[in-house]
């Protein structure tokens, strides 16, 4: 008996074209997650009350817990950057978790004898993680410029002596390498999880994937935490004066 081949694709497949822009399967999943998050927050917002319901308690616990966690890193700058950081956290964690829902990666269409899944975890697409990383690093630069003014640029372009000039170039390179490491950390973890789940389900479809599903839930949470925590550390570094 010949086994069907495992479907693993490094890049997200295009499903259809919207005004000439290709729409990939990971974009569809991301949009669904966005709809879910927006409606969740709208529902909670309209029903805010002094005596909270279960939903409000759960969300207050989430936001409050993260606020005290990031307060240790950002200290008095917390109120400026917290909205951005918690948006990153909540968005990334739900996009990560969307990949282990049943049907994601298994429901699809067969085209030219090739299986194309209709849904795919958003962060298992390199474009998505690259966009998030670029956004974060550019906002870090903007925040540094805004709080320190032109002095911030001295970190990169310092012509007082040759050594400082070389250090400035190294700083510039390290900013770019931050984008790359952000991108590949998130993409690699989530994509590796997808591959692991696919292979395990292929080897032994019954019962065996359950512990790995738990592992993927944990990895999705940890990666969202790591991403937002690193972003918070970079913000804290950028808005404080360099001390020698």
């Amino acid at each position, binding site marked *: 008996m010949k086994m069907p081949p495992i479907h*693993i694709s490094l890049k997200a497949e295009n499903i259809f074209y919207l005004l000439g822009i290709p729409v990939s399967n990971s974009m569809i999943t991301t949009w669904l997650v966005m709809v879910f998050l927006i409606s969740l927050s709208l529902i909670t917002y309209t029903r805010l009350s002094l005596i909270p319901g279960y939903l409000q308690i759960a969300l207050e616990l989430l936001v409050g817990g993260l606020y005290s966690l990031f307060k240790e890193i950002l200290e008095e700058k917390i109120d400026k950057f917290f909205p951005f950081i918690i948006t990153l956290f909540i968005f990334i964690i739900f996009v990560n978790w969307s990949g282990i829902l049943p049907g994601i990666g298994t429901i699809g269409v067969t085209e030219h004898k090739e299986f194309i899944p209709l849904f795919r975890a958003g962060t298992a697409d390199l474009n998505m993680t690259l966009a998030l990383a670029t956004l974060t690093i550019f906002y870090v630069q903007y925040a540094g410029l805004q709080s320190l003014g032109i002095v911030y640029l001295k970190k990169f372009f310092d012509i007082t002596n040759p050594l400082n000039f070389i250090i400035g170039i190294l700083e510039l390179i390290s900013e770019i390498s931050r984008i790359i*490491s952000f991108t590949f950390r998130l993409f690699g973890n989530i*994509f*590796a999880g997808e591959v692991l789940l696919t292979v395990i389900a292929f080897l032994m479809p019954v019962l065996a994937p359950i512990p790995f599903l738990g592992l993927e839930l944990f990895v999705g949470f940890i990666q969202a935490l790591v991403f937002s925590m690193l972003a918070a550390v970079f913000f804290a570094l950028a808005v404080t004066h360099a001390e020698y």
Partner: protein
Amino acid sequence: MPDEGLKAIATAISIAVGVVGPGIGIGLLAAKGLEAIGRNPEAESKIRTNMILAIAFTEALAIYALVIALILKFT
């Protein structure tokens, strides 16, 4: 040697060499974390959280090697 074979060897080497360092790193982290818990059991939850965070950073290095291996394998 045919291209397929070279590709398979490159995939195997990239992941095999790439996980050595992070393996040692995670071992050291866990050892020190457990040592710290043994010395100060009251701080267990705080130590565990920080240990898992540090492990996630170390693991990312192995993930970079894995990404390279996957790119070699599936493109």
